[in-house]
């Protein structure tokens, strides 16, 4: 039995647009669950014993809390902003800890080597200083003023630019990226990674986006994001140990890993250990 700190969080369990009348049998925190529609388009998520969980339908996805929600599902105000296109990218299963999937999403230093000529390129490998804080009033991790050179920052980008990012972790298995939006100076494109923990070392990842881009065909937007995420998959499945170490005694984090370190500190403080390794190994 997982702890309350783990069971009282919100988790994505289905993409609403893909959930047919037949429902979806899946897993959450190592236990089987069933996701389907109750009457009138209301999503329903049930444990194996038939017990219904708290659910929400937001950001294109169905969310469930296996315990008692400790707070309301996090808000993404941009999701309701007029003019944005909401992109359901679909699910990808990865044989890794759900926490490693989130941590990788928070990392920019790998762009030149893993997303070569798209999100980064040598020799532009330096990670400048940026700010990270745990915002106590909302209990979220935020990284701001992150700048990185990108050869092709978005599907709509024609050439290389220095892109500014903000990263936000509003729940242990969710990460939200805000990045400068070339067609709309002053606005941020929103790219999220919603991670469903199936087991401690197996997860399903649902990227989702809210973009200002009226020109690129929807399928191209989906494929761009799938390309990026699938480039990460072989990394995520080949990191040792399989679980995310909360003690970095066998690792060498540097200032470029500040967001990763803040994320792990935040997990440690709230006792969120599903998919985590407590001792250095």
């Amino acid at each position: 039995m997982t702890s309350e700190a783990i069971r009282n969080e919100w988790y994505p369990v289905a993409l609403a647009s893909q959930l047919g009348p037949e429902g979806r049998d899946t897993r959450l925190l190592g236990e089987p669950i069933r996701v389907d529609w109750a009457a009138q388009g209301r999503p329903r998520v049930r444990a194996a014993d038939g017990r219904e969980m708290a659910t929400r339908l937001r950001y294109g996805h169905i969310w469930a809390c296996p315990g008692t929600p400790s707070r309301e599902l996090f808000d993404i105000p941009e999701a309701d902003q007029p003019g944005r296109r909401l992109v359901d990218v679909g699910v990808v299963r990865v044989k890794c800890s759900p926490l490693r999937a989130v941590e990788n999403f928070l990392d920019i230093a790998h762009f030149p080597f893993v997303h070569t000529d798209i999100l980064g390129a040598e020799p532009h490998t330096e990670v400048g200083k940026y700010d990270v804080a745990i915002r106590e009033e909302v209990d979220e991790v935020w990284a701001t003023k992150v700048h990185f050179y990108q050869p092709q920052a978005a599907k709509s980008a024609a050439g290389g630019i220095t892109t500014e990012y903000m990263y936000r972790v509003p729940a242990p298995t969710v990460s939200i990226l805000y990045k400068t939006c070339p067609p709309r100076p002053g606005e941020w494109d929103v790219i999220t990674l919603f991670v469903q923990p199936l087991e401690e070392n197996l997860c399903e990842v649902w990227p989702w986006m809210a973009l200002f881009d009226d020109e690129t065909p929807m399928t191209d937007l989906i494929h761009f994001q799938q390309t990026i995420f699938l480039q990460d998959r072989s990394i995520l499945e080949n990191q040792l140990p399989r679980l995310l170490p909360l003690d970095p005694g066998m690792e060498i984090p540097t200032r470029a890993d500040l967001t990763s370190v803040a994320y792990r500190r935040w997990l440690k403080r709230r006792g969120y250990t599903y998919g985590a390794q407590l001792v250095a190994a």
Partner: protein
Amino acid sequence: MWTPVALSRDVPPLVVLPVVAGGRELALWRSASGRIAAWADRCPHRGMRLSHGFVRGEALSCIYHGWSYGAAGNCLRIPAHPDLEPPETIRVAVHVAAEAGGLIWVAPSAPEAPPPDPGALQPLRSLTVEAGTAAVLSLAGLAGDTLARGHLAGVEVTVAVQPIGPARCALHVLTGAAGAAERIALSRELDALRRRAEAGEMAA
């Protein structure tokens, strides 16, 4: 204790691959100048397997964040911090790697004796078998342990055996046979041997 992990010619310059020796997972690689090395298959930075990395010149780099490591396993470069000269203390755990008779051998620390030399033979191929070492060797009718000798497909062979697990091993096969037809026949015989071993066939 030396373990054979590959045929030398299967690891030309700039190649890196994962191997298992003595129960440890290693990244085996050869530098541009031809130096062979076997390291713990894990980047000290964030634990990515170094066997997924890439070789430039005399250094092995991690595919994840590009940290690169020189001959002694010492960190040479951290791309996210290009002005930093990494200290000698940031190191990958290094094993000993040596070559003899067309084979690459590794050991956790320098053994007293050099690796066994099979003599002047030609490398044929390596193949992994999902069966235990002893069962495979006895089925093949080969004598010896680390370097087993005998005849297969009518030609003389020397097989360097790499135990990988209780029911898995790799055979690194050398032969005196020089003709193409003989070598092809031997290669096919090895596939047949593997099929028999994996089907659970025992030596008569």
